[in-house]
Structures are given as C-alpha cells and as structure tokens.
C-alpha cells in the first residue's frame, strides 16, 4: 500500500480525541495535530473511531446460493457496516466441509478485498450430523479454519459433539454450536409462550436452546475444550452460560443485534421479515441478553447476517425462510439497544464487536485495538445522526431486514481495511479500486 492516510480529530472509544496516521497498512502514529505531507486527509471531527468490526457469524451464501448473496456482495454489506472481517458460515452448496470449499471462499474474499473473509468449516459432512468433516484438512488449508460450525443445524448427537470438541484441540479450533434440540423444535415457528398459543404458531421452547447449551458446556468441561455458543436468545441460556463461566468452563457466547432489540410481539401481524432462527423472544429475554452482554456473560455481538430472496419472505409465515440481513445495521442496532440504554460504553463495543470475536476466531491483528504498530483496520462512526432505515442503506443482494421503516441511530462514515479505504463519506469505494488496493496490500505482505 503506497501513500499515507491521516484521520483528523476522531474520538477513540475511550473518549480521547486524536489524529490517526496510517502508513503501509499499519497505524504509524497517534496524537494531536499530526501532519504527513502529501497524504490523503479524512476529516473525522465528531466521529468515533472504532477498531474494524469483526463478525463471527455471517452467511455469504457463495458457493451455490448466489441469488441471495455472494462473497463480494456480502463483503460490501459488511464494509458499509464498519466491518473489516467476517466469518463465513459453512451452510453453502456445496457445504464448506472440505479444504477445497473453504479455500475457494477465502480466495473470493481476498480478491473482493472489502473485508477479510474467514471461512467457517462444517463440523459434520454435509451438515448431516452423522460423521465428522475433515476438520484437520480445513485447519491446515490456506484458509486456516479455526471456527467450526454446523450453524443452521444443531450438532445434536452428544457423542459426535464430544468428539468434535476434543478433536479441534489439535489445532486450537473451536466448535460454534447452534443450540437447538431438534425433536423439541420440529415444525417450530416462533418462541413458545402465550403469544404463540394465541397466534396458533408451533412453539419453539426456550428449553430447546438451554438444554443443548447445558449439555455442551458440561461436555466441554469434561473434555477440557473451549466451546462457542451461537446466537444466544433466552434468559435461561444467559443463566446457564453465567453458571458455566463461574465454574471456569471455556465457553464463549454471542448474541445477535436483533435479539438485543426486537421481541416476539412484532410477529403479531405474521410479517415474515421477523422470522428468524432462533426466534425473537419475550421482552424479558431481550432485557436478560442486554444485561448478559453488559456483565460479560455474553462475550460478543455477531450478526447472523442471513440473506434470502424476496419471495422467501413475501409469503405465508410457516413457509417463509428463517433469517435477517444484519451487517449493514449491526452497529446502529447495538447503539440503540445497549449503548443508548447505558448497558455498554463505546470501549465495550470495541471489545464485543472487534477484539473479542477476533480472539475467538484466532485472528491476528485485532488484539490491541487502535494502537501504533497495529494493523490499520478502522471504522469511523457518526453516533449523533438518526435515520429511518430503508432498503437504500442495504448493500448486499437481499433486503430481508427487519429494520426497514424503523428509526435507527448512527451511521458508518468511513471504513479502513488493512490500511486502505473501503467506505468514504458513508459510501462504498468502487469495487475495482478496492480489489486493486487489496492486491497491492497482499503483494506488500508477501514482500514484507
């Protein structure tokens, strides 16, 4: 990367104002009134500078489901949301259960260049829950897979789960469990409770999630492995994880932005844009998730960005697809649900959306946050604005956002990935320009 970038007057997450100088993909200087002759200057007055956001749970849909999203379109959606790295889930067609598929996804991500794409490997062949996938081959492939998940499906077989937890210790991997007891959720459509009874929709009991989490933290304890719990959605799950952490079990957990903001009452009109797995829960659960994130029981926020074509949502509730897009709106929803409500400081946001997910995924370059010598992955955010969220703010291929028409705070003004700009003045940098910046950076890395 040639050239130098100066970001003027940004406020760090701890509140201090600073200029940030970026040289050759690295933060070279922090301080007041810095200058660098001949460099590009970005006025960040009034903006919060966060370390580049890292999503541990993204569905990029490629290969195989390109009508919903591609690695490129999903990367663009991520960049406009302030992300500089995403973990691409394995439920593609073919499933990412071999070194070949994960390497393909990684190389698509590298050439798109908007974010670092880290493929997640399937735990079992074809996500079928029968036989372990080639976890070692994926780990030692060029994609260096460290997170394994059958997400979308639960690894429900206790023995298979035990073996997977044990096996990935060999390469410091982690199993990310989609906690959903399958028999208890056959045909399930929404959170089971008073409202599901009224609406006549098959119930999805909280216990179906909590029972698997309880089983798996005990398994992890027994075999001495670390485990990650995807999209925790109930108050009971928070309690189980809190208990597990108090016993010293190496469990980490994520919550999605939508489970921090939305509750099941939105389902009353049977609008399928609110259909998601796990389902929207009660207001009490939303409250417990916010508190769990605030007290560290829940480690990170992950989007579970799940693009679907229009026709999968424009239909009857029970035939509609599960899932919501979330990359573009994630930081705004986090601000609305936990920052503006006093649960989290901006420094906590930097942790739950950047350093902590990077650590779980064993990514380099995110542990120090914004510091001299660190990789220049940055998000510049204007927390003072407020907009009615619309489809025009989405950059992926799909528009199945639950926030369309909702008023949300904040907006990403700039995103810097490996030292080059992917978002400027709130707009994506051109695809070709980003791709060539990525190429230059990669060459530089090889030389260095």
């Amino acid at each position, binding site marked *: 990367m040639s050239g130098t970038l100066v970001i003027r007057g940004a406020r760090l997450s701890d509140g201090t104002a600073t200029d940030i100088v970026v040289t050759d993909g690295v933060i070279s200087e922090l301080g007041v009134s810095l200058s660098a002759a001949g460099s590009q200057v970005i006025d960040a007055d009034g903006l919060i500078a966060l370390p580049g956001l890292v999503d541990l749970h993204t569905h990029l849909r490629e290969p195989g489901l390109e009508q919903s999203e591609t690695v490129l379109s999903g990367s663009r959606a991520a960049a406009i949301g302030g992300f500089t790295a995403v973990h691409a889930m394995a439920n593609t067609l073919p499933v990412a259960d071999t070194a070949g598929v994960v390497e393909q996804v990684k190389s698509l991500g590298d050439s798109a260049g908007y974010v670092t794409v880290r493929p997640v490997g399937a735990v079992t062949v074809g996500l079928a829950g029968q036989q372990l996938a080639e976890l070692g081959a994926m780990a030692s492939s060029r994609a260096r897979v460290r997170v394994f998940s059958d997400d979308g499906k639960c690894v429900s077989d206790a023995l298979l789960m035990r073996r997977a937890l044990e096996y990935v210790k060999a390469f410091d991997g982690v199993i990310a469990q989609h906690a959903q007891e399958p028999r208890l959720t056959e045909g399930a459509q929404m959170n089971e409770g008073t409202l*599901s009874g009224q609406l006549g929709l098959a119930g999805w009991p909280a216990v179906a999630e909590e029972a698997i989490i309880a089983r798996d933290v005990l398994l992890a304890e027994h075999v001495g492995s670390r485990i990650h719990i995807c999209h925790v959605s109930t108050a009971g799950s928070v309690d189980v994880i809190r208990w597990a952490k108090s016993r010293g079990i190496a469990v980490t957990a994520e919550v999605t932005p939508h489970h921090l903001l939305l509750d099941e009452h939105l389902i009353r009109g049977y609008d399928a844009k609110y259909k998601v797995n796990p389902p929207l829960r009660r207001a009490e659960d939303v409250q417990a998730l916010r508190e769990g994130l605030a007290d560290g029981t829940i480690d990170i926020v992950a989007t579970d960005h799940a693009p679907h074509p229009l026709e999968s949502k424009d239909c009857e509730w029970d035939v509609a697809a599960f899932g919501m897009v979330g990359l573009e709106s994630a930081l705004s929803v986090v601000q609305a649900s936990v920052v503006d409500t006093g649960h989290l400081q901006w420094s906590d946001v930097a942790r739950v959306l950047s350093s902590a997910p990077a650590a779980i995924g064993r990514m380099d370059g995110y542990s120090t946050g914004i510091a001299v010598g660190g990789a220049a992955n940055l998000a510049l955010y204007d927390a003072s604005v407020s907009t009615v969220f619309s489809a025009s703010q989405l950059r992926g291929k799909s528009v199945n956002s639950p926030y369309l028409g909702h008023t949300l705070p904040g907006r990403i003004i700039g995103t810097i990935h490996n030292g080059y700009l992917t978002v400027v003045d709130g707009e994506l940098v051109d695809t070709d320009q980003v791709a060539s910046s990525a190429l230059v950076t990669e060459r530089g890395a090889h030389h260095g």
Partner: protein
Amino acid sequence: MRHLLSTRDLSRDQAVAILDVAEDMADVATREVKKLPALRGKTVVNLFFEDSTRTRISFEAAAKRLSADVINFSAKGSSVSKGESLKDTAQTLAAMGADAVVVRHPSSGAPSVLAQSGWIDAGIVNAGDGTHEHPTQALLDAFTIRRRLHRSAARGRDLSGTTVTIVGDILHSRVARSNVWLLTTLGATVRLVAPPTLLPVGISRWPVQIGYDLDEAVSAGSDVVMMLRIQAERMHAAFFPNAREYSRRWGLDDARLARLGASTIVMHPGPMNRGLEISSGAADSTQSTVREQVSNGVSVRMAVLYLLLSGEREELS
C-alpha cells in the same frame, strides 16, 4: 368492517351487532323467497387451500342469498398445487375484480398476510387458518347459544352469565381460539377441559378457567358443553396414548350426557368422530345443536359478508 381476520379484534358491541344482523338474515331464511339483493354485482371468491366442503358451501349459500356472484377457487387441481405462491394467487383474484375473498388456509396467519400485503384490495374473511382462528365458526356458535338461551328476545343481548365448557384439542383448534376470545368478549365464562398435552403453553394468561378432568366439569355444571374434533394422528405425536384412553377420559359419552343438566346445550363444530369425542347418543340428543349450527352458519356468514361488502370501506359503527 374492512376484514374479518380474528375474533380478538371484535369489541362486544361489534360482535353483538353482527349477531343481530344474523338474526335478520335468519328471518329471511324462513321466507319463501330466501334471496336478498343487497350484494348484487359484488364478487365473492371462496379461496380454499384446504378441503372443507361444509365451510365452503356455507359461505357459498350465504353469498348467493345476498345475490353476490360466487367464484370457488380450490387449491386442489389449481395452479396452487403446482407451486404458485399466495401472492400470485391473490394478484390473480384482484385482477378478476374480487370484492371479498373468503380464505381457508393451512398456514396460521395467511389471511392476515393477504389483508396487509397490498396484493389485493378485497375484504378478507378468515374461514379458518392453520391452528389460529376460525372467526365465523365462533360467531355461529355464539349465535346458536344466544338463540337457545334467549329465543326471540336474543337481539341486542350478549352472553353475560353463561358458562361454556370447551373440551378437547385446544392446542391445535382454531375453533377453540376464536370461541375463547369471542365468548369472553360477549361476557361468558369459558372453561377449557383437555389433556395437559393439548393445552398451549402460556394458557394461564388466557381469560379462561382450565381443567383436566371432564367428570369434574360435568359435575360443576355448564350452560354449554362444546366438544372439539380430535384427530387420531395426534396420538402418534405422543399427545395421548391412544383413542380408547382419550375417549374414556375426555369423550362425551352417554353416561356423562345423562349427568349434564337437561338444559345444557351440547355443541360440536363438525365433522364429528362419533364414538371418539362424542357418542351418537349425545350428538343426536335434543340438547345437541349440531344441525342448528349448520343452518345458523349460513345466517352468520350472510351477516359477515353483508357488513364487509356493503357501505363504504369503514369500520362497523
């Protein structure tokens, strides 16, 4: 009234008004000329994604007695079974100029989706959606109860002071849901009796009393006992051990019928499983309203279609 999607949306006065109009419609049914010109030139589509001959012909008779044109659109043999979406079907009906669409659908909420979609401007009548609601069935049940209790003085009255016991598969019953909301709105006390497996989670927050023991409910007395159809396939999903045990504990047999007061009304939305949830003796007794329910169904559906399709599109005042 713009749509009829759920009895939860109805106020007491709206519900009484519908029942009163149904009384007028029932009067017409006793005349030699049973037809009214009120909906001349209107088109009513019966859009049935699920077989239900009795509900369809009831709506068809109702629409025809009001002089509306009726189009029956059955999912069987139509393009729906070839995978046409609800959206395309709705837009087709809109293009055909449907003024009202009577929808029977296996998905809970499908009529609500249609009503809010913008795909079609017609008034939507929910004729049974999944395990959600079946509002016209509840209205005809309330109408039947009110007529039995108050005879010719029924107009203007609600069901205050009446106790209704609903027995059977509450969990999967759209009839039970619609009746719970409507009957309680009309002032009745509703008691649900079922095996615990067939009561929805969270039912303690419904405005009803709950019991597991039919004999206890029979002894306690009730103005109305409404038996719900039990589907044999439920036993395969472990809701109860087998039909015999269900029938023994939750069926209205001759012995339980005899213990009911002579004035207790016995209802069933049909179709009945004789010998399972209701004995032939109970179904055919003078206390049974099973056949009245059918004829009242036409009057109530006439009232609903009239209120939906006459006048400017406004709320019933």
